């Protein structure tokens, strides 16, 4: 009886929190007396931030909020923009359509799994937005999703409505390796099996897209009578040619980076980001001239042959050359520590602090085309904000509160309370007949789960329909 009462009390508390959450998103949020790292106008001591209806409306000292506003006393704490991960495969029910060399008809937006616990863990690491990419099994992969981690909401709420659409390309070993995987005995190997074949596939796809666009242009101009088909594969590539869709191109070797920049220039578009780009430092001026961004690891290399010729000074050299650089995770686990990866760019080469912070906030926002609404702490931008216990570049730092558009999605204090509530709930649920293990026999017990799923650059691995395989 007592237990039931305790559970009830916990639930009441939880309900009260939930109620305050909804109220808060519509009203005002005031963060008081913080050290604010704006990622655009330096670091401001003893500063308040006022958020109204999800947008930052004022930044200054001695701000006041309307009655009923949610207030955070951030004395002694640091505040940064929400972290943005420009390369992730988290919360996807399927990552790779590896059967064909060109799978631009697929769209990971349809594969969002808003129940994936890695979302909440990312929030606990201060990540508020991410670019969710198709895997790297094919030269032209699927369409991407640019999301905010609105944990607890339906999948549709995650998608940032005004983010430009994107698409994944991939070059090099993963594509070659995927072409040599037989999923069925006796199956013929997929084309392409070489780096030059990969370039041919991409060029061919854009030629087809150009013809397709011409066919529609002719039809719309009434030059032809028969309507062309609505082609799910070529339509996204037409959008690339028209500059409406960003290309995020996975690759390692500098010769391949140059090749893909050349193909883009040939068809009159700009590559959005070179992803991984471990050898981009060798061609930094060319990358800067083309206008592509580079989304890289801070210090991870040598995990395969084409990933050997890297240096942790990559970020510094690219930044020096004027390239927009972001540090990404490509990992559900590393995603929670991007603040430390950004700090490494200060150690290797001496990237200034604010530039280092930009590499996980404003720069990825620019690469994803969402810098008008997020990526820095500025008046008029979304209230995507992290409150840290100390300087976020300290290895001892951790987020205390992570909010998106002024709404709290992670709160370390509430998390502690939640654990008890959930443990109670689990205890009650496990008592139910349906959740009890059979007395004897039964299927084998669940194997311990893989702790490190979707680890770096493994996104070309086989897809059996599981999560993050």
């Amino acid at each position: 009886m007592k237990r039931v009462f305790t559970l009830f009390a916990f639930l009441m508390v939880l309900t009260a929190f939930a109620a305050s959450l909804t109220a808060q998103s519509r009203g005002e949020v005031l963060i008081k007396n913080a050290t604010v790292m704006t990622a655009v106008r330096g670091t401001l001591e003893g500063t308040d931030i006022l958020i109204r209806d999800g947008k930052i409306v004022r930044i200054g000292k001695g701000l006041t909020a309307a009655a009923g506003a949610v207030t955070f006393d951030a004395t002694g704490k640091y505040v940064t923009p929400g972290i943005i991960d420009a390369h992730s495969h988290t919360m996807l029910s399927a990552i790779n359509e590896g059967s064909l060399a060109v799978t631009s008809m697929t769209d990971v937006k349809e594969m969002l799994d808003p129940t994936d616990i890695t979302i909440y863990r990312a929030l606990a690491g201060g990540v508020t937005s991410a670019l969710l990419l198709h895997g790297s099994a094919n030269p032209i992969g699927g369409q991407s999703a640019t999301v905010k981690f609105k944990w607890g909401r339906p999948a549709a709420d995650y998608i940032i409505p005004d983010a430009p659409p994107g698409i994944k390309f991939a070059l090099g070993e993963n594509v070659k390796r995927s072409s040599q995987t037989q999923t069925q005995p006796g199956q013929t190997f997929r084309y392409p099996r070489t780096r030059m074949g990969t370039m041919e596939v991409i060029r061919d796809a854009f030629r087809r897209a150009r013809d397709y666009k011409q066919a529609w242009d002719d039809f719309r101009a009434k030059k032809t009578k028969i309507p062309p088909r609505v082609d799910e594969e070529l339509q996204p590539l037409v959008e690339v040619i028209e500059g409406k869709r960003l290309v995020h191109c996975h690759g390692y070797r500098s010769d391949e980076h140059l090749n893909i920049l050349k193909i883009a220039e040939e068809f009159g578009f700009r590559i959005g980001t070179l992803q991984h780009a471990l050898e981009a430092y060798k061609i930094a001026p060319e990358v800067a001239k083309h206008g592509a961004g580079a989304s890289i690891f801070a210090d991870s290399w040598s995990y395969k042959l084409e990933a050997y010729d890297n240096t942790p000074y990559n970020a510094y050299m690219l930044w020096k050359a004027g390239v927009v650089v972001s540090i990404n995770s490509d990992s559900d686990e590393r995603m929670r520590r991007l603040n430390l990866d950004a700090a490494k760019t200060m150690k290797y080469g001496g990237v200034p602090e604010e530039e280092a912070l930009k590499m996980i906030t404003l720069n990825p926002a620019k690469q994803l085309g969402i810098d008008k609404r997020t990526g820095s702490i500025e008046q008029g931008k979304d209230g995507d904000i992290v409150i840290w216990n100390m300087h976020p570049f300290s290895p001892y730092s951790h987020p205390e509160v992570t909010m998106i558009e002024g709404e709290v999605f992670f709160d370390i204090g509430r998390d502690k309370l939640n654990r008890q509530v959930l443990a109670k709930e689990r205890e009650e649920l496990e008592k139910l007949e349906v959740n009890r293990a059979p007395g004897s026999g039964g299927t084998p017990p669940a194997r311990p789960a893989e702790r490190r799923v979707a680890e770096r650059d493994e996104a070309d691995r086989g897809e059996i329909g599981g999560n993050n395989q």
Partner: protein
Amino acid sequence: MKSKLVLYAFAAIGMLSGGSVCGQSYAVTNAKIVTVSGATIEKGTVVVRDGLIQAVGANAAVPADAQVFDGNGLTVYPGFIDSLSNLGLAPRAVQAAGPVGGGGGGQAAAAAAAAAAATPSNSNYPAGLRPEYATLEDIRAGDAQFESARNAGFTTALSTGRTGIFTGQSVLINLAGDNVSVMTVKSPVAMNVAFVTIPGQYPGSLLGTFSALRQMFNDAKRHDQLLKMYAQDPRGMRRPADDKSLEALIPVVNGQMPVILVANRENEIERALNLAKEYNLKAIIAGGQDAGKFIGRLKSQNVPVLLSMNFPKRTAAASPDADPESLDLLRFRAEVPKVAGKLAAAGVKFAFQNGGAADVNDFVAAAVKSTENGLSKDAAIKAMTLAPAEIFGVSDRMGSIETGKIANLTVVRGDLFSAQKTVTHVFVDGKPFEIKAPEVPAGRGPGGRGQGAGAGTGGGANPSALPSVGGTYSINIAAPGQALTGTLTLTQQSGQLTGSMTTDLGSGPIRDGKVTQNGFSFAGSVNFGGQSIDFTVQATVTGNTFSGTVDSPQGAIPISGTKNP
């Protein structure tokens, strides 16, 4: 003279078994009659003649020629409808004409090739993406295969194929009859879609499944447009390519033909509803065990649910080493029995289906459990009778006990919702079947899993003719992307098999093991990704090797094995 008599006798039997009952009349008297469409009659009579309900009422007259069943203590319901099943389809055929000898891998490939060759087609689309496939073509006639379903009170089922993205245009059949024409109530009822992949080719992932469907819907719309243009004026226009696959989709994209979309969990339902909305499909969700989370959308998009009565329960053995099950899964199992009640309260149309359960009796048990979790008994009965009839557009001819409707009746002794109940009779198309009390488990599960062309008498008939299949086998399962190896141990006792199967996914006992004419079959479960997945295996034995198919909701994959000396 004597021979003439025998001839007459044969003729009479032929007429009876021909399905048309030739004016034979039956009456169930003094029974409680749950009409579903109207008020329940506490004590009344149902008269059946010529396959139809001739009269129903408290004082309905019993015809002089009627065979009378005393219904004292009995309740008559409309025949139960299983709103999604594989009933009437053969257990997955494994082509016996496989090569003799050869390694396990070769046999697996041969089995896969045989499966592909089994459906010759000049469609432009691979097997699995052929919406023109009508399940009706593969329905088998005969009463015996439906015995276990009838014993549980079912008289009618919607049936569709087991494999592919387009599993088939479904057919509504009555569960008795000596030819398919007589059994068929309606065909096609709907286009059935499962969001699965085609191993080894596009679409090889869930991502591709959606884009492949989308492209076919686009192309079907265009095909329709071109056909109309051509019909209007063929001159100066290349004739549209004859494409039976796209043609079959035209009524789907035009919103005329319902589409049954298999979707159980939250993400699956969300995706299915999005697709339905995008293409304005006349959608029906099948499975729907998380449908309680989509009440608003189901109502606004006017989507009925064929709710799975295969309620999830933990099957994994306890182990101190295993991870605890996810809270999400624990909650899911607790919530599933409440879903029907929620749908009913919100006014979402729904019907019950077996959901691939191994034992058809679990269906009624789950329906009963729903009534203990917020669903009214009336609504539960409706979900097995009139509701599916309405969803499938046949409520003018079945689903309730009304004069002139098809005489499908289920007669139960005791309360249907109590443990002490016995189905005593069912009438299928006016033909009575008496249910013999304790049933030998001859053909458990959907489809009866009967013995093919045999009389469905199970394995006991002639044990000496059965092959000897006991022993320990090294096995190979050609799962897409990841071949599994392991051991299968079978112990044979006349026609029955017991034993266990161990693979990379763990080990477990086999169930329902049977020796067949040329091999064996059994069922089992594996734990994959935290969920228990039931599968069945059908295998053909050649010497010391076997080859066959593992059939699960995820699709069919080849299995082969070699007996260890």
